[in-house]
């Protein structure tokens, strides 16, 4: 039987509720009450859901035409595009998450104000392959909006980058 990614996700949900209950075991009753009132029934439901999911996986490996979950009426939420080749979709997903988390890391190391212009410029020039004029113009527009609205007008206290603190600058 092949374990599907959604089954792993269901298992993580089960693990989450187990941790919610376990972490509360030594707390005073008043602090413990709410996490347990929520956590215990949810843990039971998560076990039920995981078992259903595993049975559905087993059923699926036996018959490829069987639906994975009860058909119903309402889609759960918005749905991702399905017209792209899965391999391409997976590669692009990893790329965009890398850009987002790379940006996050750069913001932490260098500070938001320093990181925003190079991030926008690099994304436009390197990732999107835009021309110099458009890349520079859009980077300037983002910087102007950031500086004018968030920095000058709202005076948000953007923190210094961690790197400056380490270097004592």
């Amino acid at each position, binding site marked *: 039987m092949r374990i599907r990614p*959604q089954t792993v996700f269901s298992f993580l949900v089960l693990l989450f509720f187990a941790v919610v209950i376990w972490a509360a075991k030594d*707390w005073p009753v008043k602090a413990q009450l709410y996490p347990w009132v929520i956590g215990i029934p949810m843990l039971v439901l998560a076990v039920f859901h995981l078992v259903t999911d595993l049975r559905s996986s087993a059923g699926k490996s036996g018959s490829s035409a069987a639906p994975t979950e009860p058909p119903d009426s309402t889609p*759960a939420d*918005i749905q991702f595009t399905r017209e792209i080749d899965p391999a391409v979709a997976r590669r692009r997903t990893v*790329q965009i998450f890398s850009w987002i988390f790379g940006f996050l890391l750069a913001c932490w190391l260098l500070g938001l104000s320093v990181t925003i212009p190079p*991030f926008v410029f690099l994304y436009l020039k390197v990732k999107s392959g835009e021309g110099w004029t458009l890349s520079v113009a859009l980077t300037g527009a983002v910087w102007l909006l950031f500086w004018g609205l968030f920095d000058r007008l709202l005076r948000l206290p953007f923190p210094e980058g961690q790197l400056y603190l380490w270097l004592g600058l």
Partner: protein
Amino acid sequence: MIESATSGLLQVLSWPAFGFLLLGGAIGFVVGILPGLGGLTTLALMLPFAYTIQEPIAAFCFLLGMHAITGTTGDITSILFGIPGEGTSAATIMDGYPMTKKGQAGRALGAALTSSLVAGLEGAIILAISIPIMRPLVLFFGAPELFMLTILGITFLATLSSASLSKGVLAGGIGLAISAVGIEDHTGTLRYTLGTIYLWEGLSLAPVVVGLFAIPEIVDLAVRGSSIAGSKVERISGVLEGVKDTFRHFWLTMRCGMIGVMVGAVPGVGGGVSQWMAYAHAVQSSKDKRRFGTGAVEGVLGPGAANNSKEGGNLIPTVAFGVPGTTGMAILLGAFLIVGLTPGPDMLTKHLDVTLAMVWILVISNILAAGVAFLFLSQLVKLTFVRGNLLIPFLVVFVFLGAFSANNHFADIVVACVFGVLGYFMVLFGWPRAPFVLGLVLGRLAERYLGISLGAYRTAWLLHPPVLVMIVILVGSVSYSVYKRMSTGNQPVEGRVEQDEL
């Protein structure tokens, strides 16, 4: 009453009060559109200006006008980019953004703005006539009833918004559990703080919602490699179609507007709740529930209506009893004190003209917001045809800034990214995000009400007649949902694609 209403209107239209209304409206318009830049933050930042203005009606024109408009324009960003312009306008994404992806952004915006306008007026009218009637009703709801109301809200949404009942309920449970993060009020116990001071206050709603909803949309945009609307060309009549949709589903709009007023009038229940409840009602009352989440216009009309009408509801306990219904109203309560007014019975007698002027402010600002938005609608819709590669860096920067501006804390950006990853997997594996958000919004309240109920009545609160009625409704709705799923369990599913390839 008529004399006070006329006096209130004339005072709102007089100079400089009307000028302040326009200024506040302009700020509210921009703030509402910018993702994550919260109306609450701006309201708090602008509150000190009430000292300068001093004249009560002019001060309310500025502050209340700004506050009312942020709700309306917050829906615009939700529909166009799938990023909630306001923390309270996330529910509009559920069907508004899929409509945009189908090339129907104009129709979705037309529907959202018109339903906002219609229900905003409804909320203002109900505010005007209901203050004396609502007082006993609001006071009738004690902690046990409010606790059951929160559980009922989450269960409704969980049963209605998911293909799998267990996924819906579990998603709500995750939200409820995450709301327990932080210092416990009674014992001071640090719960799930992971050894960091940042989590002592619990997780803020804004970074969680911005990450949960915006990042999966950005990923999808990057994967598709096209514009938000793809190659789908929308006819210019789309906007008008959205306006017509509001009147085609007029009673749905009115009912969702009423939900907004009722939920808004219950003190302590946040602004986002009314939108989700209205969405759940739109799904529940539709004959073809399969369309929801794929771009059903009713899924835009419901939240759009409740988002605006709740302001009228919020004002009822604030003005009549001095009990603010939401954080926004708590800030506005500060404005009452700054301009020398005391909320309470005086607002219904001695200062009735000021109370009715507030009704007029809601009416006029709603009309202005819808009018101005309609003027720029065709330009706004064009943004959805801009190539995704050009939009993505802007959207990522706004997600980061929006998350940061919630508390001016860098960790909020990390929270947005973490919940962005969670949101991505939830969408990928068909877990609904709506019950999760509602659980997070209502969790702290639910715990407080549960604590008060147990402290005051032990388990006897379970036998309160309104509580019993709500338990019956809850059990009935879950049983019906299970029965319906079992009875349709053997039918083939059209269009469902296995997700394990991704």
